[in-house]
């Protein structure tokens, strides 16, 4: 006869409420782990998907994700000339927040190195890759832009031609793929009035210089387009992505590129390590501490509930002892209840999570190893939480029945 089950049957409402409470707490613990995994997944998604062997970024920086990197677009031609390199692509990535149909629209603008890269590697769930050099984009479903939607960014209007799912940046914002030139146009778009004011300002600054006074033609140049002023031109691309030839020695190519003083080279794994050690690490520690706190709270709550349940039947425990019940019978009664609360709470947490987690604004990834480790933790806290009740039951004398 299982005494634990019969006691639960007798106190079903209280047991059910307790289990639901523990289940909700465990769901949050599970969710925290899932959010952390989601952060890693989102942070490394683009690096994984873009399929580069090497990342060439601005010298002495850890760009383009961990910090800003600016390198001239023409660097890709230099890279292509290195033995072992099969191809090089410009890479532009930056986050913008604009307004679309009266709602804020936040996206990671991702430049594809047109015409070599039309986004054929981007996993589409609808539509197609880019077909023209301008005014098209592939949007992640998270951005809420349907196929064919027209989006004004800066002075131009772009049409959504393809849709992806789960393609997000390290901040969890949906990705939007443009050609590099469009991505740069979006990034460096300046209102007309700002341009006019800047040109006037340049002219005024030139007036204070001898060079300006003695070189009249220069004043005509500075009021022109900024792109016509190479020395004052805007930064161009964030990185150059290198694809190696089959059988090429990655270390040797990286060493060759590493001799160039104006750039720094990272492998894909190094790029991921930079992301995880920098951007995700603090979030990991924060979530980790929060999980620990929640586990401690769950343990305390379970312990108090098990202790209260034990107090309620302390007279019955004394009666069982009087009848000669072994300690294993009494320990089993309490421990089985704690384990049952833990197991059902865990199951409930998982079941509720399958409904709740997809509705979270950030990706929640529940992996089997995390589920197993949380299961082991729940087993541990169930045992731990029963100790107080077991101690109380063990300390009861059989003659308590007479009181």
């Amino acid at each position, binding site marked *: *006869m299982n005494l634990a089950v*019969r006691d639960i*049957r007798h106190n079903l409402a209280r047991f059910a409420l307790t289990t639901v409470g523990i289940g909700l707490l465990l769901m949050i613990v599970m969710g925290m782990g899932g959010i952390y995994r989601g952060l890693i997944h989102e942070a490394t998604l683009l690096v994984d998907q873009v399929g580069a062997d090497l990342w060439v970024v601005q010298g002495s920086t850890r760009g383009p994700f961990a910090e800003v990197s600016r390198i001239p677009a023409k660097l890709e031609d230099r890279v292509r000339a290195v033995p072992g390199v099969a191809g090089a692509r410009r890479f532009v990535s930056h986050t913008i927040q604009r307004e679309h149909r009266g709602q804020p629209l936040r996206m990671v603008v991702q430049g594809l190195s047109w015409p070599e890269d039309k986004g054929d590697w981007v996993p589409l769930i609808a539509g197609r890759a880019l077909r023209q050099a301008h005014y098209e984009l592939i949007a992640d479903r998270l951005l809420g832009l349907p196929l064919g939607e027209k989006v004004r960014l800066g002075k131009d209007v772009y049409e959504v031609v393809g849709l992806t799912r789960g393609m997000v940046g390290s901040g969890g914002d949906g990705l939007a793929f443009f050609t590099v030139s469009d991505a740069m146009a979006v990034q460096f778009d300046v209102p007309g009035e700002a341009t006019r004011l800047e040109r006037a300002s340049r002219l005024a600054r030139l007036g204070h210089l001898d060079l300006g006074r003695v070189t009249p033609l220069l004043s005509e140049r500075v009021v022109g387009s900024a792109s016509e002023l190479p020395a004052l031109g805007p930064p161009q691309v964030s990185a150059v992505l290198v694809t190696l030839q089959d059988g090429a020695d990655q270390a040797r190519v990286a060493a060759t590129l590493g001799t160039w003083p104006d750039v720094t080279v990272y492998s894909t794994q190094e790029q991921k390590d930079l992301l995880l050690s920098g951007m995700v690490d603090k979030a990991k520690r924060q979530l980790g501490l929060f999980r620990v706190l929640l586990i401690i709270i769950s343990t305390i709550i379970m312990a108090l509930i098990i202790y209260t349940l034990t107090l309620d*039947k302390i007279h019955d425990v004394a009666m*069982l002892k*009087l*009848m*000669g019940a072994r300690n294993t019978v009494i320990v089993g009664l309490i421990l089985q209840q704690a384990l049952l609360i833990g197991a059902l709470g865990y199951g409930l947490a998982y079941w509720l999570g399958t409904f709740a987690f997809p509705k979270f604004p950030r990706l929640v990834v529940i992996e089997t190893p995390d589920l197993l480790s949380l299961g082991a933790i729940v087993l541990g806290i169930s045992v731990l939480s029963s100790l107080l009740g077991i101690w109380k039951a063990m300390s009861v004398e059989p*003659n308590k029945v*007479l009181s």
Partner: protein
Amino acid sequence: MTNVATDKTPAIEAFSLTKVYGSGNTEVVAMKDVSLTVARGEVVALLGPSGAGKSTLLTAIGLINPPTAGRIVIGGQPVMEADRALVDLRAFRRQHLGFIFQKANLIPFLNAVENVQVAMEINDMAPRAARQRALELLDYLGVADRANNLPDALSGGQQQRVAVARALANQPSLILADEPTAALDSHRGRQVMELFRKVAHERGSAVMVVTHDHRSLDVFDRTLEMEDGQLKNGSKESKP
């Protein structure tokens, strides 16, 4: 009255039992130099005013409140020497003793049959056999029709009958009852007392009952009376 027990070994032998609570100025002698013998199949009433030491004697013999001094032998086996246990007390209680109290003390989350069954399962009887025997005992005590009711749904008399069935479950050689009829009306009280006699005489168990109920004394084979922690007449046993 007929004693069906054939074994001549007494069910209980108590020698010079003394129980002292506290020490120094707070010392209270609850029981002093009590010796007695109860034969198998014998039904004995233990009488006396409140504070006379009846329950102290009963719980000492029941191995739940060890004496300060003295010796207890149950079924020929020495079990206590002063406050030192000579056997595994819990196992001994499980196998040889049955208890009944003023309150039935049924486990509230078990129904009537389970309350009886659990006593046997604790004593390592297989669940199926334990249930079968529990049903037989409830039938024997006239409460088989309430077997699946929780204690809350039973009357006081029915609860007490289930408690008696539980006490009988492991065929104990000794049944100890502490004012088992105090919560019952006189009719029900007498029924329970007669039940003890029936059990003792039919099953050979010794029954020792602490009671204030003088109306049912004719049910008992023998009456012992305590006062100030001692058996009356210099701790000698007395026939009514």
